[in-house]
């Protein structure tokens, strides 16, 4: 039994991960603090797989939210928006249902597909796995914020050019993932691009052209996708 934590420790652990505990805790810290433990377990799998681990923040002061609606201030694409919502509302539902920011899509609502991907404090996050109350004070960036009205980001343009989309429902999530990858990877390669979007699913089958689009966006260059036989 030397490996297993003592009873009281175990209880603490369980507490730290319970949903109730989430509701009681502050800001984004609780959500990210759980991540390193999980990510570290896989950390030695491969040097090539660079896993971005959000910095661990110790649990701070415990704050209660709810029950019932509370004021929540979210800084989205540089603008602070105040919502009156229950603490159980996810960031995804806050964006889509309360703010009519529908670029992030709801597909699995449990961290399994990446359609709801946003960037928070520089980290790629599934917005369906965050409670909006946790995201107060954070810099939230959604697909609506990556290019000004009437313009298109390089990544979006590359997706359109390479036909890296069919129905397009997974596309905003992939665009956010690739945007994040290209910001953080100085020398993106086919392998790094594939690794970067392993947390996103596409049902129509556009992956190969997403890789092409990412590499095209990285160079800013022209040219058609290399998965095709040129005519």
């Amino acid at each position, binding site marked *: 039994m030397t490996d297993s934590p003592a009873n009281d420790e175990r209880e603490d652990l369980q507490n730290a991960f319970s949903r109730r505990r989430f509701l009681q805790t502050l800001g984004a810290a609780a959500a990210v603090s759980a991540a390193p433990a999980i990510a570290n377990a896989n950390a030695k799998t491969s040097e090539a797989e660079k896993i971005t681990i959000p910095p661990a923040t110790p649990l701070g002061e415990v704050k209660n939210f709810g029950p019932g609606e509370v004021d929540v201030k979210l800084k989205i694409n540089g603008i602070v928006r105040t919502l009156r919502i229950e603490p*159980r509302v996810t960031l995804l*539902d806050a964006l*889509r*249902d309360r703010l009519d920011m*529908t*670029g*992030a*899509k*709801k*597909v*699995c*609502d*449990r*961290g*399994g*597909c990446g*359609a709801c991907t946003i960037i928070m404090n520089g980290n790629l996050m599934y917005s369906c796995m965050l409670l909006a109350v946790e995201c107060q004070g954070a810099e939230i960036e*959604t*697909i609506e914020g990556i*290019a000004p009205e009437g313009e*298109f*980001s390089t*990544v*979006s*343009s590359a*997706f*359109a*050019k390479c*036909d*890296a*989309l*069919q*129905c*397009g*429902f*997974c*596309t*905003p999530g992939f*665009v956010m993932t690739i945007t994040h990858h290209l910001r953080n990877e100085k020398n993106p390669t086919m392998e790094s*691009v*594939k*690794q970067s*979007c*392993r947390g*996103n*699913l*596409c*049902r*129509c*089958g*556009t*992956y*190969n*052209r997403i*890789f092409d689009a990412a590499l095209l966006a990285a160079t800013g260059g022209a040219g*058609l996708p290399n*998965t*095709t*036989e040129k*005519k």
Partner: protein
Amino acid sequence: MTKKNYDREETLKLGFAGNVVEKKVKLADDQAKPWDLDTKFQYAGKHIPRFDGLAKASGRAKYSYDMNFPGMLHARIVRANIPNGKITDIDVSGAEAIPGVKATMLLKKVGDRVRFDGEGVAAVCATNLEIAEDAMRAVVVTYEKMAHAVIVDDASKDGAPIVDKGDTNKSPESVNINPREVSEDEINKRFAAADAKVEATYRTQVQTHSALETHGGVAKWDKDSSGNPTLTVWASTQGSFSVLDGLCGNLKLDRSQVEVICEYMGGGFGAKFGADQPTLVAANLAKKAGAPVKCMLNRKEEHLAGGNRPDSIHHVRAGATDGKIVVFDVTNYGTGGYTGGAGARNIMIYDMGASRKVEYAVKTNCGPATAMRAPGHPQGSFVLEQVVDELAEKLNMDPIEFRLKNDRYPMRKAQYEKAMELIDWSRRNKKGGEGALAGTGPKKRGLGVGASTWGQNGNRDGTAMAVIINADGGVEVRNGCQDIGTGTRTIIGICAAEALGCPLENMKVRLGHTRDPYGPASGGSVTAPTVTAAAKDAGHAAKLAFLDKISKKLSVDAAKLDISLGKVFVKDDPAKSWNWHDACKLLGVETVEVTKERSDNFRANFSGQVGGVQIAEVEVDTETGVVRVIKVVAVHDAGLVIDRLTFESQILGGVIQGMSFALFENRVMDRKSGKMLNNNLESYKIPGSLDMPEIVTVAFDISNGHNSAGVAGLGEPTVIPTAGAIANAIANATGVRVRSLPMTPDKVLAALAAKGGSR
């Protein structure tokens, strides 16, 4: 309508390089010559980014799921949590007492049967989704439980629990013998006498469509100017007009009172026709609550009730003599859930000599099957391609050489040649599991082939296009059909611009509004061949109308004018020309508006089938059983290629979904509880970025002469051959056959172990 004169005759050059035929077609006076091998295209056949690519890639495209309105309510459906039983009570009072709940409705009554875990029983709506979920949980339904059966083996046993009605779960057998005059005796004799024989059982799994946008829609009631109710529904659908019909029927409304809108939709793959339950719930609750209602399924509901591809168990006997298939005898059954229906298709590609096909379906307490991309074909092909390969192997023939001997379609021959060259077929292990490609290590490589067919050339069926030309040079084409991600909007625009002669950048296409002219539901790969011909016909009609209008202002006889490459010019004096914008300015305050019905298909044409060939290279880790697809070459034809970019995307999508069917997807039912165990997207596996092979697509151009555009359907044939090709590649790599889908590591290891030893 005045009767048309079809006296004009034109000769079309059809086929493909090295295989050209001339055919004559009769045309109406106002019809342009159909496109053929001689046509010089300005746009068609090029890589053209889709019209809505930027809207989608910027997150600005609004899907039905994205529609929000002030005061909009959110609905949830209460679902049965038992697989079989009778409802003894439904109590919605607890839900109605929750503040914020605005309306409830029953989808079943007391005494009704529920036949699968997840069947809709009641619905609620509330001011937000969280409250709607509280309300959903507060609805109390009690049941008299009945024994259930959720897999074919359990439901087909004697004395099995009855899934729905009647005294058996089995549907009557259908027996098809081809050619008809062959006796059952002859089938048996042929098998007995064959040089090479295969006798084996193959299984395919239940697959769910798993479109990323779930089923459902948003409904909003208004009043027209005379105070009559009108209904607008934003539906995630493959059939805007079939949703319209369903809503009119359900709510007893005239067509004039209802509009269905579907500008963008997040995938359907066959599961989204007609007014489905969530859409009807949205419309009914919106009426009851007096506010717009959104009702979209969640992922779990989508798996349980959103449709699926039936599984199959094939018992096969097949024989070949002298390099020709002489007999194919198959009994197949599977389950399409509680509604039954589970056929498989596998006798259309090769000449099978004599075939007998016995089929029946077994009902189970599972959600109903719906059409899924090439219904019946991928499962049938997985079986057929392995059988054909096994016969070739026993005859000591190359599997492609053997296929060519049993295939009479000329385009597939050319496609095999192209695919063999692109994958370097000469590398194939001459014997399964042995050769330079297989190597001597634990990871073995192999090559495998599969073929596909389809034959969809669209139809007239009332499809029409409206074309509007404005004085500012802008052109808009309108049709009420939907773009399910295949690129329908784009190919309509390209065909209309091509026929009209206007610059492509001036072309806009509005789809998915049912007040616009009728368009087809997107099933059976019917959309592209239907709408491209319609767009060509309408573009031509708009050109005639436009020239007629401006000819008066130019004082030139309209018959002497033409448009090409964005210029209006005088035919016998081409130097006299006006660019598109200047010509349009002549319209002044007028517009040109033409609505034109699609022309009929032609009888004189090249081939009734489209073809396709896919070759897969796989690597099998004989120690872990993991199969990795390294490369797939996919060569497909579908008549004239309008947009090479979206054409290739269709192939990519077909290959990836085919690979997913081959290696990953599987709906897992728990026999004891009757519940689906993997009703999410992390344990219902579809492939991700790291699973992707290199995929080489070849859009194989054919001029087919079936309709005025010469376009055929492509969506479905691309998904058919992949699983069979991968299975054959596994056999080529390892020397063992995996006859059950998905070909997961456990099955690969079991097959290797059965052969004796893993290396």
